């Protein structure tokens, strides 16, 4: 253990786990309560297009991912708000196109491309100091916004029509939320990879929502769970030499199934 912690990459990984758990808990709660799981998955996968493009043009892939995931957030948000039908189809199509763009541009890029895989499957052990700074910046931004708009975000998540009648800026809040989702997705991509982001964004919050009834408490519990999942998964993957991203997801997914079973089992759980 002591030996493990002496590695710089491990220290970075643990710090990344803390930083990532904060957005996973806070934004994940909003995603789950506002039923935006599918759209978040779409944003995550579309972001890969940005990664591929950035590789091709020799730019930092994170920048490409940020640009694409923000673009995808706004597009998908617009589709979800403005089209009455087929919104899931449209989001699904964008999802696939984003990924395809990423793969094509990766093909077009000459040379060694193994690093592209780390965006698909995550590599918490390869988190750099620069990544940590970016994560910290996203954390600060996201958490400040949520604190600032907490009661309004809660009101729109619960009952958007009522919020609108109260003249809350429902559309602006939606844009802010979806931009926060876009940024969180890029952050989580480093840790579990874009294919599995959905799990880390939903599982901790979903468990919290099962047992608690105060959004703030759910956010705290989800952050804590996320921390346990990422660090637990990291230790297991280190010990048995497994992929860290997939191990983290299996730990969270397994816990979710147990929590769900317990919840079903004891209908009289404190609520």
């Amino acid at each position: 253990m002591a030996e493990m912690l002496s590695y710089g990459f491990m220290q970075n990984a643990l710090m990344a786990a803390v930083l990532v758990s904060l957005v996973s808990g806070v934004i994940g709660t909003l995603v789950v309560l506002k039923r935006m799981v599918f759209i978040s998955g779409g944003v995550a996968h579309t972001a890969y297009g940005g990664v591929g493009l950035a590789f091709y043009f020799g730019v930092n892939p994170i920048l490409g991912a940020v640009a694409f995931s923000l673009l995808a957030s706004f597009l998908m948000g617009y589709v979800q708000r403005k089209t009455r039908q087929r919104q899931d189809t449209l989001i699904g199509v964008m999802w696939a196109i984003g990924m395809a763009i990423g793969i094509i541009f990766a093909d077009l890029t000459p040379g060694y491309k193994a690093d592209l895989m780390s965006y698909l499957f995550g590599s918490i052990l390869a988190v750099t100091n620069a990544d940590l700074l970016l994560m910290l910046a996203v954390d600060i931004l996201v958490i400040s916004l949520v604190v600032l708009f907490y009661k309004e975000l809660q009101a729109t998540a619960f009952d958007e029509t009522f919020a609108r009648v109260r003249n809350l800026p429902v559309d602006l809040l939606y844009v802010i939320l979806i931009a926060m989702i876009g940024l969180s997705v890029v952050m989580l991509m480093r840790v579990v990879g874009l294919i599995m982001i959905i799990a880390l964004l939903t599982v901790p919050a979903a468990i919290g929502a099962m047992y608690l009834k105060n959004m703030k408490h759910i956010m705290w519990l989800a952050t804590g769970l996320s921390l346990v999942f990422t660090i637990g998964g990291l230790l297991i993957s280190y010990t048995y030499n497994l992929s860290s991203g997939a191990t983290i997801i299996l730990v969270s997914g397994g816990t979710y199934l147990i929590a769900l079973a317990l919840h079903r089992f004891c209908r009289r759980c404190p609520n």
Partner: protein
Amino acid sequence: MVEIKALPQVEIKNLYGGYDHETVLEDINLTIWKNDFIGLIGPNGGGKTTLLKIILGLLPPKKGSVRVMGQPPQKGRQHIGYVPQFAIFDSDFPISVYDVVKMGRLSGKRIFKRLTDKDNDIVEEKLARVDLLDYKNRGIRELSGGQRQRVYIARALATEPEMLLLDEPTISVDFESRKKIYELLHNINQQGVTILLVSHDLNVISSYVKTIGCLNRNFHYHGEKEITEAMLQAGYNCPVDLIAHGLPHRVLADHQEGR
């Protein structure tokens, strides 16, 4: 009782409304005066929800004018306490009764401001008003349908509205709770809050409302608590079965005095 008829709370003139390719409402005229208690009935698809959306400024009218408290709906709606249709809610949403009612204290003008002790007092007062103060720390998903509906009424009251607007408040609510809700609304109305109530539940609302209107594309309303022959004859599909079975006679026949 002297009615102050000087101030129309909602004034709708020659309104046409609907969605992209279909018009659901045709040439609607309606003036709602302070202290009225209007029951709005009509078949599904008759435009009841569309009319509510227009009054709440959620849907722009196709033609005609709408004023709420003398202002455009998007401004005037801040004086309306809206109680949405129960069925549209995520009944599993994790939130406490207290926090739901607290949402009534939010408004566009108070975004960066914390809620105060006074807000909390109002929330408690409204919870007591709907007889749910003991339930304030419960999760909304633990409540029965009728209790949940009263929470939404408390939330609407917490906005301190001039007028309550309710969309089918008693769908999937048992008879006893229904009665409780209507009695509550009756008392609220007595204390000077105008009420516009959309319901299928003609049988029950007829005992509590002051005036009844019937909506099916067109609008039949005479500012009276009476379903006129014209309403039925014109084929408004108002729930005739209810009228046939045990509707209090006075609703069909007698002209009410004083209104």
